């Protein structure tokens, strides 16, 4: 889960199941994809799947999608996107929903229609609202048709039909039995962790100076390229994605859809979506930073509310919107760490310092006076019987350390106590009295009588260098040469 998802890798992995346009080839492949989708928890992978499905034209294949449980997956994603107020993702999901060959039993199966309906009424984003309304009308049409012709629950390809309907009749029949149950709770988690992590990553890449301009330029094209790359890539399991800066760019584009700000653009083309997403990235930036510590999906929503204004002012100018980002986004991850503990440190120094050891430590900076006064410290007398339970850990540790040091010292100064005045060695009388012919020793003796001894009470007092000698006049006499050879000498060859 913690691994960032590289959409390109993902696409490569999926490519055997996709045709040239990036659409799913057939029913069997669709079955696999649905399975994968159920496990897809990250925004990146979800977006990839959504895009794949959106280019899948074949109604049969899409029906397979519904049959294999795609419908409940969509429901879960939508619910999830709504709870986290991820308008961009909602939009993406709804765009797909619009294309699905739904039948009335699908609509009855879960609360997707309810979600869409509520979106069509209460969504803060007008684009989401209109799309939801559009979707609602399409579905009402389906229901109407179904009620008009109960025996035939199969709708025609009315994906593009947009009739006006207001209600979802409850009396349609089922056909889809094997829709698996999707574990809804897991999404909350995803929203908080996976998605965020992904954002951070995207942002970081976005900010890489080298990548940024290139990205901007290639945005519109990229989408197409990406599409085709979808089909060309090979099969790699979902989990182990390696990040590669080059690929990352694409993630970025792809994933930004999720954060696309609905206010920004009303163009419904895919590429516009990507563009929007890119431009709106700045608004997203703060999210990971703020959200993670709190772990609350609510924060996300509040951020989302701010986002429109940000984005508006930026108005799709990628350079502007991106440039202020780097500092914040670049440190998105580190800041997270910095921030999360930040509330902690203040209590930590004060509290543990008191609590852990039970007495104040050297620094009293964090203490308040009242606390300091409550501490009582008793010096234990040597040999005094002590209440074991009242002994605190620090004292014990200190004692332990001292005794260890003593032992260690003993070891190092092996037998410090073993020193005793050494005995004189029984030696034959010296050949000469040492220094007997020294005149300088007498000079020094005289000198010491008149010159005060330098006494240094501490090592710090000792000067770096002795005093310089008194200057004395002397004539430079070239030294006598000591010859290396003497012809008169007897050379012993051995």
């Amino acid at each position, binding site marked *: 889960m913690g691994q960032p998802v590289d959409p390109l890798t993902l696409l490569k992995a999926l490519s055997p199941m996709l045709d040239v346009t990036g659409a799913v080839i057939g029913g069997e492949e669709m079955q696999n994809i649905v399975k994968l989708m159920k496990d897809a928890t990250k925004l990146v992978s979800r977006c990839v799947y959504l895009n794949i499905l959106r280019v899948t034209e074949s109604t049969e294949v899409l029906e397979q999608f519904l049959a294999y449980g795609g419908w409940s997956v969509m429901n879960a994603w939508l619910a999830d996107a709504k709870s986290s107020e991820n308008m961009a993702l909602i939009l993406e999901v709804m765009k797909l929903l619009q294309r699905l060959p739904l039948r009335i039993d699908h609509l009855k199966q879960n609360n997707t229609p309810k979600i869409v309906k509520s979106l069509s009424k209460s969504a803060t984003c007008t684009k989401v609202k209109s799309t939801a309304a559009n979707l609602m009308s399409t579905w009402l049409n389906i229901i109407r048709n179904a009620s008009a012709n109960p025996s035939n629950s199969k709708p025609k390809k009315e994906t593009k039909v947009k009739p006006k309907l207001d209600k979802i009749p409850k009396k349609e029949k089922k056909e889809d039995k094997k829709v698996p149950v999707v574990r809804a709770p897991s999404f909350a988690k995803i929203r908080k962790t996976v998605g965020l992590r992904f954002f951070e990553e995207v942002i970081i890449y976005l900010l890489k100076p080298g990548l940024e301009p290139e990205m901007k330029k290639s945005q519109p094209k990229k989408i197409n390229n990406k599409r085709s790359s979808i089909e060309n890539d090979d099969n790699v399991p979902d989990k182990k994605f390696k990040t590669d800066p080059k690929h990352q760019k694409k993630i970025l584009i792809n994933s930004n859809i999720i954060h696309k700000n609905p206010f920004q653009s009303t163009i419904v083309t895919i590429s516009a979506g990507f563009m929007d997403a890119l431009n709106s990235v700045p608004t997203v930036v703060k999210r990971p930073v703020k959200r993670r510590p709190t772990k609350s999906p609510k924060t996300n929503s509040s951020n989302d509310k701010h986002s429109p204004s940000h984005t508006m002012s930026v108005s799709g100018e990628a350079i502007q919107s991106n440039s202020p980002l780097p500092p914040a986004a670049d440190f998105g991850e580190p800041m997270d760490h910095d921030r999360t503990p930040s509330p902690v440190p203040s209590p930590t120094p004060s509290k543990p310092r008191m609590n852990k050891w039970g007495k104040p430590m050297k620094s009293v900076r964090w203490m308040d006076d009242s606390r300091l006064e409550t501490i009582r410290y008793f010096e234990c007398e040597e040999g005094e019987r002590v209440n074991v339970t009242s002994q605190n850990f620090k004292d014990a540790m200190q004692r332990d350390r001292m005794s260890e040091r003593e032992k260690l010292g003993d070891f190092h100064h092996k037998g410090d106590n073993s020193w005793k005045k050494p005995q004189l060695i029984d030696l034959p009388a010296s050949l000469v009295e*040492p220094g007997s012919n020294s005149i300088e020793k007498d000079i020094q003796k005289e000198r010491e009588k008149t010159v005060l001894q*330098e006494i240094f009470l501490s090592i710090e007092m000792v000067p770096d260098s002795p005093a310089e000698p008194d200057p004395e006049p*002397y004539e430079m006499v070239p*030294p006598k040469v000591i*010859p290396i050879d003497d012809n008169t000498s*007897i050379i012993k060859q051995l």
Partner: protein
Amino acid sequence: MKMKLGDSVVKSFRVAKVFRENTDRINSIDFSANGENLISASDDDSIVIYDCANEGKSKRTLNSKKYGVDHINYTHAGNTVIYSSNKVDDAIRYQSLHDNKYLRYFAGHTKRVVCLCMSPVDDSFLSGSLDKTIRLWDLRSPTCQGRMQIPGRPIASFDPEGLIFAAGINSEMIKLYDLRSFDKGPFTTFRLQQDKDCDWTSLKFSSDGKLILIATNGTVIRLIDAFHGQPLQTFMGHLNTKGLPLEASFSPDGQYVLSGSSQDGRIHVWNAENGSKTAVLNGSHPGPLQCVKFNPRYMMLASTCTNMAFWLPSVEE
């Protein structure tokens, strides 16, 4: 009550005290003639004086940060030292420890000094440098008394009576000079088989003047007859894998030869007479055991790496 030095005593030496006064290698040590004090010079530019006979503790620390300090030697006053500089210049400096003041500089060498030897009797001293000269000086004058040009790294030392000095040349010859007529050339030359894979790094006479000990920066230590120049022993078995000029020294009676080891923190002791190994003493020195010296009068040893270790025999006599 004096103690006789014998195999059992040598084998019983144990570290009695370790001092950690220095932060870098102790490059040289010297006992005072009465054996009461020990002075050490370190690459951390400090000089530490120890009481090594009575209380066994460090007495005083002085700095020579400006010029550095190496090859430290007591002079006869007991409170004065000479040492070579390893910073600024290659002069030899004469310092009064009493008032922490230089008394005189002996300038002349143009490269690092690698040996320095005080006359046991008078105020003269010898120095050898990588500038391929050996110089003879007198403490009372800053001017050089004698200068010998040699083809390679020099080693030089006085004999215990202070009447002659020996110069090792090219790791193959020992030349003996009479101090009274050194300008006439050596009175004798011993030519030995050249040590090709190592250099001679120090030369010492035994206290009776009969033996010459030559230490190398390789894995051999040679013992030579000081009168006739015959090679007597070659001591091996200590480690010196890093080509360090490890110090080798005689016991005060000349019966034993001691050397440190570059790795295992041990002191190797050989019998000078028969060349056999008498003992290997574990000093647990963490670094190369640079200096080992026997106290000239007391039954104690000092060995150094970055730490200073004092050794005492663990047997009573």
